[in-house]
């Protein structure tokens, strides 16, 4: 395993009366891609800017490697940021923009040229060097902003919602490219976004933030399938949340009363005891629609289709079942007929995740 590269210990920050960060702690491994994910105002950008050195650390400590950087000014941290609006200097051409930082650091001409050539080649932006920022498309500006950061060979690369100003298709292309580039260069990268799809697609580690706190940190798979709170479950992807009460609890399995039926679920680790109130989380694509009751099959709910839409790769149904509305996605829809009226739903025991109610 790679060593810890950036260590955030108990960091807090307020703006006036607003507490932007509350005792945030996090370890970031060398060469990893970490995403701060959360709704606007959750503190993710504040945390990023604190790491960059734009905001003072009010309380707590931040280490890069072994060095405490609380009082190290921004320009000596070599934690380089790519801004949401790219922040390309309008009074310089692209070449001057990219080498700005190297010139400030008084690198030799030769070294500057070498680094420039390397970066330009990585990003394929050679033909843009003599243009001015206003002549570039959004996607090109984005690339140049990235080039300006990478040319510094940063310890830590900070990306503040770098894709949010691009159109949807471009966003998906650049996303894949960015991940590839990051893996190849092996730069420790922190990425801020409110787009859960981006977070899942790009990251080794996702830190979901809400109201100034990291509410859950883990791999994209863990965040998606094992959310620890209703907030994480519903913020990341679409989740069906069912409230219920544990009826029976044995190691590896529990039976939950969800009002109009019982659901059995299998999960490793500690499970709540009988009588505990819980929330069950089940993703729309894991629910199956059955044609008929199979004898002896549990976890069946009877439902009625309220509405549906066709989304190309799947059908999305809104089904009334167990006294609430469930979202059900049926993939590979070409083979199947459209369901209407009464249907049967099966919620596979190993796909249901249990969230202890706070």
């Amino acid at each position, binding site marked *: 395993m790679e060593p810890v590269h950036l260590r955030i210990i108990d960091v807090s920050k307020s703006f006036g009366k607003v507490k932007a960060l509350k005792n945030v702690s996090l370890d970031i491994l060398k060469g990893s891609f970490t995403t701060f994910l959360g709704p606007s105002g959750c503190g993710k950008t504040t945390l990023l800017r604190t790491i960059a050195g734009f905001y003072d650390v009010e309380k707590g400590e931040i280490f890069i490697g072994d060095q405490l950087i609380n009082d190290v000014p*921004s320009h000596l941290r070599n934690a380089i940021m790519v801004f949401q609006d790219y922040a390309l200097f309008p009074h310089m051409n692209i070449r001057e923009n990219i080498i700005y930082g190297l010139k400030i650091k008084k690198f030799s001409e030769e070294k500057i040229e070498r680094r420039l050539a390397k970066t330009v080649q990585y990003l394929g932006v050679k033909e843009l060097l003599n243009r001015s920022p206003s002549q570039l498309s959004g996607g090109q500006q984005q690339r140049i902003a990235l080039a300006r950061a990478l040319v*510094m060979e940063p310890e830590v690369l900070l990306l503040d919602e770098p894709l949010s100003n691009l159109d949807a298709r471009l966003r998906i292309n650049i996303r894949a490219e960015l991940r590839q580039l990051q893996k190849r260069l092996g730069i420790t990268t922190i990425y801020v976004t409110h787009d859960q799809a981006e977070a899942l697609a790009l990251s080794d580690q996702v830190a979901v933030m809400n109201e100034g706190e990291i509410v859950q940190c883990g791999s994209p798979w863990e965040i998606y399938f094992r959310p620890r709170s209703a907030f994480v479950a519903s913020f990341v992807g679409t989740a069906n949340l069912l409230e219920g009460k544990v009826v029976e609890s044995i190691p590896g399995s529990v039976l939950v009363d969800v009002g109009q039926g019982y659901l059995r679920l299998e999960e490793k680790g500690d499970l709540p005891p009988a009588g505990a109130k819980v929330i069950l989380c089940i993703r729309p694509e894991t629910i199956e629609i059955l044609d008929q009751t199979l004898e002896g099959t549990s976890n069946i709910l009877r439902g009625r289709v309220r509405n549906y839409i066709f989304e190309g790769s799947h059908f999305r149904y809104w089904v009334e079942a167990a006294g609430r509305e469930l979202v059900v996605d049926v993939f590979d829809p070409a083979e199947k007929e459209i369901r209407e009226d009464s249907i049967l739903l099966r919620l596979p025991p190993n796909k249901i995740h249990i969230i202890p109610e706070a």
Partner: protein
Amino acid sequence: MVVIIASLALFVLYPILRVFTFPNLQDFLEIPFNARYLKAILNSLFMTALSTTTATLFGFLFAYTVTRTDVPFKKAFRFLSILPLFSPPFMVAFSYMMMFGKNGLITYQLLGLRVNIFGWHGLWLSETIAFFPIAALVMEGVLQSIAPSLEYAGRNLGATGFQLFRTITLPLARPGVAGAALLVSIQVLADFGNPIMIAGDFSVLATEAWLRVEGWGDVRGAAVLSSFLLLPSFLLFIVQRYWVRQRSYITVTGKIALVDIQKTGWYVRWLLFTFCTFVSVMILLIYVALLMGSFVKGWGFDWTPTLRYVKEILSRSPELVNSLSFALIAGLVSAVFSITSAYLVSRKQFLFRQFVDFTNILPAALPGIFFGIGYSIAFTRAPFDLYGTSAIIILSMIFWNISMGYQTGIGTFSQISPSFSEAASNLGAGSMKIFWEIEAPLVRGPFFSAFVVSFIRAVTTLSVIVFLSTSSNVVATFSIMNLVSDGFYGKAAALTSALLVVSLSVLGLAKLAIGKRMELFKV
């Protein structure tokens, strides 16, 4: 609409044309051979270059202090720097005469020096202090419109303190600095109040034109000189309007990040603090001089306190009554006229639309002296003889001030989506109904600000009315000028203070009445 077009033709275009047509060709051809003219032209250019440079520099330093540093008391500095914008322009020169002149309170009474303030150096000081607030205001807007992420990026990539200022902040602000300098230079060039009070024998175009008429009755010579004043003013105006505006780097981004003001280096901090304190004291001295001057018997020789002058201007001063009533009428009419013009131009298609647009903006490019001379040529003889009437003064005040209200109006109407009125008309409202019920409530803010600005400019102008004022329609500024030149500082100070009180209270009331929506200074 016909009324508007006709008024613009008669009260804006006609007097301008008269300035050019009144003298013979001969008069214009004589310019290169007239030593006095040449000297005035050179002096004007010299002063414009000098005062513009210092005023712009002062303005930039002030704006930078306010927007980018943690210098203490910067809010107070900002407030003080705005004050002179709403005061009679000649006030600075007048006060400095009292403070730093031969019998000056500071130079003579406190320091025992006999300083001669009259001349180009006195003028330089006065104009710098009088006009740097314009530059400061413009620069503040420019510095604030620079996206904070650009400076963050610069810092993040390694630039610190002065490096950041030199490589990012200053280059980004440069077009704004140019714009501010041009605006200031227009003001300096057209300035009449300061040179007439403090320049002594150092003549500039504006004062030389005045001297032609006052001393020699030579209206043709004055017309020639003020045409000469118009040329550079007009050029600067065009450049400022159509060139600089398009070159500003204003980055509009969705998200405005919180800007953490960085700790300024202690020496920079103290330098800026000392500088701002010095300038602020210079501004405060203006007001101290005026107030003190109003309450002492004989400035410079008899410091006994007296209420005589205050009583005098409160009980019998036709000039003050005239000033107030003229400016009130002019302010109201000017606001109505300019906002209506703006409405017509932005919402209707009609034959003389371009003409209405052009003539509404035109007065902003005219030096007050030029405008005043135009009125005195056009309207003191047949077929339009208004000599010595209130009307001629009021008319000049109205049309001299339409540009500001007009531009604010245009700005407002372009922001109000026509779909409001389209929706109303779709629902069955007539054209008049649409205006009164839908658009009028939205233009209340611009209307008020147009009124306030016109009023203040009218009540404080000297250059426009200096050729039009006579004993029968005398206004306060004209009277102050005469009192100062005759050495009656007490009454002059009291009158100036009265104008100041009036302007600032109107401003304060308007601000209270309509709050932040008021746009008082447009560039």
